[in-house]
């Protein structure tokens, strides 16, 4: 058997249980799963609203069409003119929610990608090299995980100063150890699996095994985690913004900040808390549903 | 005791087990199986994995899940049909009158509960024994199944025992209430070869001592040869041949039985004679209504094998489900 034949053999489906084939089957299952379809619909709605915001929003995010209607005791609720009512400055709540989707999506996606990239690099270093590299990386990961995520995000955002970039970086950093640990664990278990031992015994080079076999087969749980991370990143961004650590410009609508600013009007204008809150739930729920169902579709252990 | 001493203790008639699956076809795992065992007798249920022998035993014990499984037929024990018994009555019988030893001693013991508790809970449940009395009885029991230093072992956890010891502990639990029927499902498969013989010897002795009926489920004809009085060979959910041990070994009539025997190494075979595995795999089956399920792998296949299911017929002291059986000694031209 020549080396290329060995590689061809190790790439066949029988030898690699976690490969692309499994992902295709999972994808087929997912397309027939009503819960996942609901999730996809929610995500699609969220993404479309974010992209098309200027086209579908009835007003601009800073317009104050109802400025004259606001008094210290009354903030008009939903009406035919303003479906989600007005906010405390006479701005159209629906338009603010629609524009807020942009911030949410942007922060969620960027934070997830940055966190995943950082985590994958660390995890790959630990998983591929082992020994002291592994020890050092995992110690760093342990320390990072010893601080509750939100607290760490607060600390980082405080250092970086008030901006949307700080929020993204802060949330990215708290996701780094999660991805690092996940990928390392996957790579370790893959390294011990039969097809890798087979490839190694046939003299395939270490780097080639890692890049062409171990890494691709470790990706399924990473994809699941990335989907779930989008949900938590959106919620964490909203939490930071709720605590006053969001973007620098308070006139840019952010769902978390919108919720925080309604605290004084909860009794008189509950719609100001309801709509931004629901918006966060819808966005987060979409990614949660798809992520969970994807996990079940990919992992035979969850399938019953 | 409603039965006379000579009647069968356990009488299984037309047992049929069907697994139903939502969005899939039903699977008939056991199809019209019948057998009887009397006290002190050992019956072997033999077949490859997937032949339905384990499902048969679980159905007799009432251990199949209630959902998505349908069990039909009759399991008479002591005059009662166990399949129609209320669940709590069945619980009273399980562990007291009928007990079971499972295949894998590694996974069949609760890892976080001491051995002692797992033994004494049987006494507590069925014999109103508690505390010191139950502990003493458990220690005696462990001693009887050949576990040394039982006092210490009772306090230990399963992972602290060797595989053979664990299987002995499982046997002890099964024998705690001196059951009248003991079902052993591949009790030696997961053990080292040297331990296997000891465990079989133990089962044999215990059955002789207590006069229990033993149902031995195995794929290993060696086990059958050393232990069983009668043998039922199962294939694809049905009994294909049943006979006394001596008759079966001397003269297998069903080609499947013949194949099983030929695939076992024998001391009386000429040196260097190759073992003959049965061609094909247990997944190459015909569904019974279309003919003999073994036909796709059968060396003796004739046209009559397919088309209609072969009937189970009594031929000279044995029952056989085959339209073209292997020849008897008289029929073989010398």
């Amino acid at each position, binding site marked *: 058997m020549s080396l290329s034949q060995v590689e061809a053999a190790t790439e066949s489906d029988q030898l690699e249980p976690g490969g692309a084939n499994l992902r295709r089957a999972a994808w087929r299952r997912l397309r027939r799963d009503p819960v996942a379809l609901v999730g996809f619909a929610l995500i699609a709605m969220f993404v479309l609203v974010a992209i098309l915001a200027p086209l579908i929003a009835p007003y601009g995010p800073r317009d104050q069409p109802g400025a004259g209607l606001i008094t210290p005791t009354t903030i008009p609720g939903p009406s035919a003119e303003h479906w989600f009512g007005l906010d405390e400055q006479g701005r159209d709540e629906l338009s603010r929610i629609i524009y807020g989707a942009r911030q949410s999506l942007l922060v969620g996606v960027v934070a997830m990608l940055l966190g995943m990239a950082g985590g994958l690099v660390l995890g790959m270093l630990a998983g591929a090299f082992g020994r002291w590299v592994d020890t050092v990386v995992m*110690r*760093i990961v*342990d*320390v990072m995980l*010893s*601080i*509750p*995520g*939100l*607290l760490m995000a*607060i*600390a980082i955002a*405080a*250092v970086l*100063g008030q901006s949307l970039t700080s929020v993204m970086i802060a949330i990215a950093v708290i996701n780094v150890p999660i991805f690092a640990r996940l990928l390392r664990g996957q790579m370790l278990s893959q390294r011990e699996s039969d097809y890798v031992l087979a490839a190694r015994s046939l003299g395939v080079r270490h780097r080639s095994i890692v890049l062409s076999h171990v890494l691709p087969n470790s990706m399924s749980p990473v994809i699941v985690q990335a989907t779930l991370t989008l*949900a938590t990143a959106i919620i964490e961004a*909203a*939490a930071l913004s709720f*605590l*006053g*650590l969001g973007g620098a410009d308070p006139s840019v609508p952010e769902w978390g900040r919108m*919720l*925080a600013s309604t*605290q004084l009007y*909860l*009794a008189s204008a*509950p719609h100001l808390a309801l709509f931004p*809150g629901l918006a*966060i*739930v819808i966005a*987060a729920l979409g990614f*949660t549903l798809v992520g*969970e169902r994807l996990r079940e579709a990919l992992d035979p252990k969850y399938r*019953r | 005791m409603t039965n006379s001493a000579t009647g069968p203790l356990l009488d299984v008639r037309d047992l049929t087990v069907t697994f139903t699956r939502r969005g899939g076809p039903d699977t008939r795992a056991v199809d019209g199986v019948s057998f009887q065992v009397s006290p002190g007798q050992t019956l072997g249920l033999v077949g490859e994995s997937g032949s339905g022998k384990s499902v048969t035993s679980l159905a007799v014990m009432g*251990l199949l899940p209630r959902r998505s499984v349908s069990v039909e037929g009759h399991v008479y024990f002591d005059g009662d049909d166990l399949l129609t018994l209320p669940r709590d009555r069945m*619980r*009273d*019988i*399980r*562990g*007291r009158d009928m*007990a*079971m030893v*499972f295949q*894998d001693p590694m996974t*069949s013991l*609760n*890892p*976080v*509960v001491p051995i002692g*508790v797992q033994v004494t*809970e*049987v006494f507590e*449940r069925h014999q109103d024994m508690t505390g010191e009395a139950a502990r003493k009885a458990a220690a005696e029991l462990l001693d009887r199944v050949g576990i040394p230093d039982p006092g210490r072992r009772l306090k230990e*956890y399963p*992972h*602290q025992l060797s595989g053979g010891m664990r299987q002995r502990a*499982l046997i002890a*639990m*099964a024998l705690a209430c001196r059951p009248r029927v003991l079902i052993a499902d591949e009790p030696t498969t997961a053990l080292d070869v040297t331990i296997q013989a000891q465990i079989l010897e133990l089962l044999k002795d215990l059955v002789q001592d207590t006069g229990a009926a033993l149902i031995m489920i195995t794929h290993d004809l060696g086990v059958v040869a050393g232990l069983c009085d009668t043998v039922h060979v199962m294939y694809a959910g049905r009994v294909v041949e049943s006979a006394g041990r001596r008759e079966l070994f001397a003269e297998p009539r069903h080609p499947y039985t013949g194949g099983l025997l030929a695939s076992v190494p024998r001391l009386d075979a000429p040196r260097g004679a190759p073992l003959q595995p049965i061609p094909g795999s247990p997944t190459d089956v015909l569904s019974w209504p279309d003919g003999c399920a073994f036909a796709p792998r059968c060396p003796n296949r004739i046209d009559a094998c397919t088309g209609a299911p072969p009937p189970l017929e009594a031929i000279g002291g044995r029952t056989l489900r085959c339209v073209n059986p292997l020849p008897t000694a008289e029929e073989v031209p010398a």
Partner: protein
Amino acid sequence: MLKFVVRRLLLLGPILLGLSVLLFFWVRALPGGPAVALLGERATPESLARVEQLYGLDQPWYVQYSKFLTRAVQLDFGNSTQTNRPVTEEMARTFPATFELAVAALLLAVAVGIPLGYLAARHYGRWLDNLSVTGSLLGVAIPVFFLAYILKYVFAVRLGWFPTQGRQDPRMDADHPTGLYVLDGILTGNLEASWDAVMHLVLPAFALASIPLAIIVRITRASVLDVVHEDYVRTAEAKGLWERTITRRHVLRNALLPVVTVVGLQAGLLFSGAILTETVFAFDGVGRFVAEAISNRDYAVLQGFILVIAALYVLINLAVDVSYGLIDPRVRVK
């Protein structure tokens, strides 16, 4: 067992050390440098000079770090710029409230989550199961502060069943020897004060419990589903044990092992969840103080609280590991 605890404790050292390094550099990275960060932007030059001298900010970093470490070990984190009182004192003042809230939330999550997860698994695929699965997915997707708003609006503002904010009615004449208001009422014989404190706890505890509850339900359900298919549960059934015994001794004792780990992890996270919950309910605890410290740029407070909360989180996880060793005999021996 002792060895196990000691080894876990030894692992704790590097983590806490790493944590202190992180925090040390964090303060130095804050806008305006550590002196401004710790004293606030309006600090006088004299006080800045005093802090620089106190922290040895003119000395090399390793001297600074060792000073920082010495002070941290003595729980000296300087003064809060909001209240001008030592951070440690503020911690001691606000901690009991959060402790009370966290315990209430955790009790709620465990007391509801474990039975619900168990029942969901037992009714697998039926409406109760679907409901709990949906609920647990929703539970992690709802931001804690939004849930807090909903609860506050519906049950406090609209229905008036519970107070909208605070820990106790300020008009109530109550002594607080421990700072745990529910306990204080009992200790001082003022049950009315206790009851009032409980009523103030209900809504924030529900809000804070939502995520741990969702996760505990999910893990318990998955774990029970795994365990009921284990061989040892079948063994227990074969012994004829009562369903009660099987559930308690054989199913739950194994199924709860992973749940313990999760409960511990979630317990540690309650403190960061409290930052959001306490803000909504104006509940005067650690979380609210931290939230205020964030908006007031009170870095001395943040630094001290992060270190203490993280240390607490690590200690809770250690406690969980150790208790895991107590319940699982396999860990104990290793």
